[in-house]
């Protein structure tokens, strides 16, 4: 097939990110040509300030070196500025006369610094702050000259001023507004910031209007004159008074522009062959100047260019961070506060801390933090995910730590941690390693960090910390997204939600059918997507979709837990944690016969036989003559009980029997993640029902049900769900809730995270308020379980299934001399 021709004008972060995404989706669809006006390959523009400040070098901020272009067969034309787009001939012409034809054109020309239209603006020593050349010039000037004036007290201006000061210049910042960063901060925070920058030796003039730049007689700037008549010396003037989308080229080609190139939700311009992305594009009236939204646009644009067409860009909530080392500043969303909003403020001018949270209709819509930004990432997530904060409102100001977090997923103060602090306890990765990997490899997402450093790739409890480090290292460029918006894995661009929906709507019943229908980019997926797809299929179409053992991880294939030495642990089911002498004898006999190195009691009231060889598993199961305990699965695990009213002098309900009944109700249930229950017979709650997926506490008048608890990685207390009168009601409500979870949760989403995502209201509506729906849910669970049988029994009885456990003997091997 003849390849299509894709031409990209502009070689910056947004454009190249689009190409990267496109190459992942459709590596062979296009012949790609890139025109870059600068003589450099794609570099990380947001790290120019650390370069200016002497904290990094140019080489360190290159994102895609020349080899990358070569390896991907991209024709790169550097140092060439495109001067004309001929849309009729579908031709792009550059200033050196070189041309390129296109089938699709991607305009990613970025923006230009806004140069004040004042006398003297063209003098030598007057520059914008945009690219490597500007940065180099500032660094050179700092060696030979003394006085620098930065016009504009925004993010870029302050970063430039800070860098020039560190390079030894005497720097004055001139700002037209009443306080610094008036687009990011309110007045109080702006004044705190100014004070701390003044302490570092920067000077400020504000509000102040620049009138003219004066010539030293040789064509170089020597002073700045203001409207009030004041004159200050200036050997270097940096204009940082804003940026203008660079849309001239598009406009001259007749493409509709209005403060940026107008694009729709698939990043196409008025001419559908022509896409625009990044700072030059105006989407729904907004031209974004921060890198995170540009990356979202890149994903959508690539998706459309790859002819998939299911992604849509709907605008972004943005956050910013000032990259001046030692100053913590973070803002996100609508932090200024408008009509209909409420604000909560914490102000400690002496301690240098100021925080403002803006709430609208019980949802956090904006945050502005100065001095202590540790919770920035967490607030940003709240804003993006539209969580209702009414219940945590009184703690909101104190961050994630205050919301009962005893684990360390959340807001520990990563910014203040030393580099040697261990972040990932599973893989022994410390903060310094992560920061270094982010900077040297140009990482923007937690997944990238996981891949590169292994931090957060095992148990996942430190992912929150990794996310914070990412945010504090690259600021607004961090690609932090909730799971509901993330692609399932590298094999597809679809989210878990989109995949679940497609499987249901299109009645997809097999893995190969699903992958084909959804355009999977790999022949048979990977270790991340296959188990998820397999679960979605069997949970959506019980009895129709066939379980694929090869798409299950080893524990669920061997029906035992693999241990570090390759042996397995076996946990037989003890309904409700109740056993008897003959079971115990059999367990003891098996332990003797197979020389089990350790017999241990588990947290879920079971007995665990550790260190069993794989080939012995079927025999062990047979001799135990007990059902599978599913201690290895994303499935029902255990129902923990107390002895209840049968024996206990405090017991009000027969918790043991209810636990046994519930465990029978759920036997063989596969679920998005593991599911644990507990039943206590009185409010003393000896079965610890408060940290279970479903916890039941018997009281004199009936049963209280709690859902969404978790005792693992991060302790989560279950929330009160409903109070019912009878044990039968408990069983029905329990089945309905867990079926809802099975149908709606994403793979590997525990009940607590599912609940946080969909909200308690949604669950109550489906299970409590609608009786018919509750009964239907419970019936669907029963239907699904009618196809399942005890996996141990199945493997003992079916020789074909047993072969997986046998080693192949090769006769000649014993004779072969090696």
């Amino acid at each position, binding site marked *: 097939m003849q390849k299509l021709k894709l031409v990209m004008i502009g070689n910056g972060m947004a454009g190249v990110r689009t190409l990267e995404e496109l190459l992942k989706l459709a590596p062979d669809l296009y012949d790609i040509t890139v025109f870059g006006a600068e003589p450099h390959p794609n570099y990380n523009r947001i790290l120019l300030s650390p370069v200016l400040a002497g904290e990094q070098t140019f080489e360190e901020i290159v994102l895609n070196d020349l080899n990358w272009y070569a390896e991907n067969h991209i024709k790169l034309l550097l140092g060439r500025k495109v001067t004309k787009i001929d849309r009729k001939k579908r031709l792009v012409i550059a200033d050196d006369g070189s041309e390129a034809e296109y089938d699709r054109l991607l305009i990613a020309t970025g923006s230009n610094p806004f140069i004040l239209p004042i006398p003297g603006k063209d003098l030598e020593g007057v520059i914008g702050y945009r690219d490597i050349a500007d940065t180099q010039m500032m660094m050179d000037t700092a060696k030979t000259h003394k006085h620098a004036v930065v016009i504009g007290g925004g993010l870029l201006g302050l970063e430039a001023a800070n860098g020039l000061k560190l390079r030894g210049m005497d720097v004055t910042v001139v700002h037209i507004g009443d306080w610094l960063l008036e687009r990011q901060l309110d007045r109080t925070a702006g004044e705190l910031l100014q004070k701390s920058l003044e302490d570092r030796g920067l000077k400020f003039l504000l509000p102040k209007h620049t009138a003219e730049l004066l010539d030293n007689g040789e064509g170089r700037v020597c002073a700045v004159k203001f409207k009030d008549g004041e004159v200050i010396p200036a050997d270097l003037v940096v204009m940082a008074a804003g940026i203008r989308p660079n849309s001239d080229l598009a406009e001259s080609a007749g493409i509709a522009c209005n403060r940026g190139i107008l694009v729709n939700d698939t990043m196409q311009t008025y001419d559908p062959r022509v896409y625009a992305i990044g700072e030059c594009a105006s989407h729904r009236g907004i031209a974004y100047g921060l890198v995170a939204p540009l990356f979202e646009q890149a994903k959508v644009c690539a998706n459309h260019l790859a002819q998939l067409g299911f992604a849509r860009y709907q605008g972004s909530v943005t956050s910013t961070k000032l990259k001046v080392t030692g100053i913590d500043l973070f803002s996100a969303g609508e932090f200024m506060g408008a009509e209909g909003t409420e604000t909560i403020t914490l102000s400690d001018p002496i301690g240098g801390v100021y925080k403002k949270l803006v709430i609208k209709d019980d949802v956090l819509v904006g945050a502005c933090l100065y001095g202590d930004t540790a919770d920035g990432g967490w607030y940003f997530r709240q804003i993006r995910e539209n969580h209702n904060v009414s219940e945590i409102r009184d703690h909101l100001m104190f961050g994630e730590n205050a919301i009962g977090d005893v684990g360390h997923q959340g807001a520990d103060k990563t910014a203040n941690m030393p580099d040697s602090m261990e972040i990932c306890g599973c893989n022994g990765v410390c903060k310094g390693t992560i920061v270094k990997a982010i900077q040297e490899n140009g990482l923007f997402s937690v997944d990238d960090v996981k891949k590169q450093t292994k931090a957060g790739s095992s148990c996942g409890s430190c992912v929150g910390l990794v996310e914070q480090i990412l945010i504090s290292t690259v600021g607004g460029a961090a690609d932090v997204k909730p799971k509901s918006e993330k692609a399932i894995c590298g094999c597809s661009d679809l989210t878990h939600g989109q995949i679940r929906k497609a499987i249901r709507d299109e009645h997809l019943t097999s893995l190969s059918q699903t992958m084909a229908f959804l355009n999977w980019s790999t*022949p048979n997926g990977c270790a991340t997507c296959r188990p998820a797809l397999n679960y979605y299929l069997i949970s959506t179409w019980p009895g129709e979709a066939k379980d694929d053992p090869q798409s299950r991880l080893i524990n669920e294939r*061997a029906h035992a837990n693999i241990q570090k030495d390759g042996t397995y642990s076996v946990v037989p089911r003890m309904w409700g944690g109740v056993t008897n002498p003959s079971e115990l004898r059999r367990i003891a006999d098996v332990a003797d016969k197979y020389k089990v190195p350790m017999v241990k009691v588990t947290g879920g009231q079971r007995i665990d036989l550790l260190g069993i060889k794989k080939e012995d598993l079927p025999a062990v199961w047979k001799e135990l003559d007990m059902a599978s305990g599913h201690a290895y699965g994303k499935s029902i695990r255990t129902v923990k009980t107390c002895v209840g009213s049968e024996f206990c002098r405090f017991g009000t309900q027969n918790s043991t029997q209810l636990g046994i009944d519930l465990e029978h109700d759920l036997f063989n249930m596969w679920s998005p993640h593991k599911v644990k229950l507990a039943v206590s017979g009185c409010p003393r709650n000896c079965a610890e029902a408060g940290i279970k997926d479903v916890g039941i506490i018997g009281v004199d008048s009936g049963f209280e049900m709690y859902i969404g608890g978790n005792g693992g990685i991060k302790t989560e207390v279950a929330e009160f769900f409903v109070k019912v009168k009878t044990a039968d009601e408990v069983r029905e409500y329990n089945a309905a809730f867990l079926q809802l979870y099975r149908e709606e949760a994403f793979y590997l989403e525990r009940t607590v995270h599912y609940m946080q995502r969909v909200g308690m209201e949604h669950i109550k509506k489906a299970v409590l308020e609608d009786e018919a729906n509750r009964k239907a849910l419970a019936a669907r669970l029963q239907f699904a379980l009618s196809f399942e049988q005890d996996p141990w029994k199945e493997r003992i009885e079916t020789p074909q299934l047993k072969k997986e456990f046998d080693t*192949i003997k090769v006769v000649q091997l014993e004779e072969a001399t090696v």
Partner: protein
Amino acid sequence: MNWLDVCDLEEINVLGSRVIAGPKGDIAIFRTSNDEVFALDDRCPHKGGPLSQGLIYGKRVACPLHNWQIELDSGEAVAPDVGCAHRHHAKVENGRVLLALNTAEKCA
């Protein structure tokens, strides 16, 4: 090369594997979705996990212990991980899986 007759191809599941007791420890034999077979020492270069128990996709296997991705044809770990599982020769002839032990070739 000294080819040893191992088993019928159908004795190995598609995208599955079997274990052969080798002279120097277990050898894992893998079958891909297009019926190619590969053989590696059944030890992940990372912490010695039994690769035979991993999930197989494309021409790779994900180690069951810590999810290292190992290339079946070379034994090399996929970047950023570094390491190599010792490789043996394997092929299918007339529906039979054949194995030739590789004692000389060391990992790169």
